[in-house]
């Protein structure tokens, strides 16, 4: 294997993209799932408040999603811009 400097940089950028998205996906997945589970629990207790509870769940999940989206942005930057 013959590695030049540019190739080395590009190769590690690709590896970084995979690591950023892969590791970055762990937290939001667990967190959003927990939020959704607790929303189900709350709706089980008070089904008449389902609208409010679902709205709160979605807002909370949207915030929790943000780190996943940061990872996606960084991964795409590493793939296509750097």
């Amino acid at each position: 294997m013959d590695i030049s400097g540019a190739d080395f940089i590009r190769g590690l950028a690709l590896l970084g993209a995979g690591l950023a998205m892969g590791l970055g996906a762990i937290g939001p997945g667990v967190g959003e799932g927990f939020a959704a589970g607790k929303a189900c629990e709350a709706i089980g207790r008070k089904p008449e408040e389902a609208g409010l509870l679902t709205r709160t769940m979605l807002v909370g999940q949207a915030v929790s999603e943000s780190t996943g989206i940061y990872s996606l942005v960084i991964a795409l930057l590493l793939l296509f811009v750097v």
Partner: protein
Amino acid sequence: MFETIDYVQASLFLSSGLAMGFGAIGAGLGEGYAAGMANDGLSSRPEKSVEVIKNMLVGQAIAESAAIFALVVAILILFGNASGQPPLKLWACLGAGLSMGLAAIGSGIGAGLAAGKACIGIVRQPANSNRILTTMLIGSSVCQTPAIFGMVIAFLLLFLDLSAIPLYPGWAAVLGAGLSTGLSAIGPAIGEGIATTQAVDGVARHHETYSTTNRMLLVGLGVTESTAVYGFLISLMLLFYGFEESHTLTASMGLLSAGVCMGFGGIGPGLGEGITASLALRWIARKPEDSGILSRTMLVGMAVAESTGIYSLIIALLLIVVM
């Protein structure tokens, strides 16, 4: 000096150790948890020992199966033939060992969680022990499917004819294939175990909602499984996509990165969706009349939790197809 055969032989031994070492973690933890919970229950009602011990042993046997898959793969790798093999075999063996070993972790833990909660349920409601056992069996057998994905990829890596794949970047493709299925199996399998614990608990407390709970359990398990399926898909793509020979590091790292990305990316959504399903099932069992709104919220919540898994799938596909 080292010959190719020395490297391949060394890789066979290392991979065999990785397969069995990682593969033993989950089953050990899960079975220990099941035994602990069985004793926990029996300390309050020792007269139910026959039913509880029977249930504990059945649950432990299922948790053990993932470790047995790992043992079979480890033995196959250990006694594999190193002579006359291409250098790519070295990496394929490593991929096979990692795929099987990592995939077995979640399945053992998941099945153990389900078995432990079932023991507690039987102590509480011995009259429902058959239904509890059935629900536990549904959940813990679905927990084994990610380990089976890992085993399929390990067998493909061990027995596929690799001569068509160039060493560069093929080494990264086969290693990535192992990591993708192996890592992405951990989350869904544990998540499915968590979901099953509440279904088992619900059946124990409210046996009249048995059929609704089981139906919703299967829906929840099906969605939780999805990221393990993505991981399996990326592994198959890495094995069968067909790559041009390329000696650049970029080509190799792109493929390895695709496997790592989908592998890690599958862990979180699987765990999270399992937690969602478990809490939804708890209330579906308690209030089956609200199962419509509960299952709708469960599915919406799971869809959002799935999103990061889908981002990982997209990045992995971009790395394979575009880069």
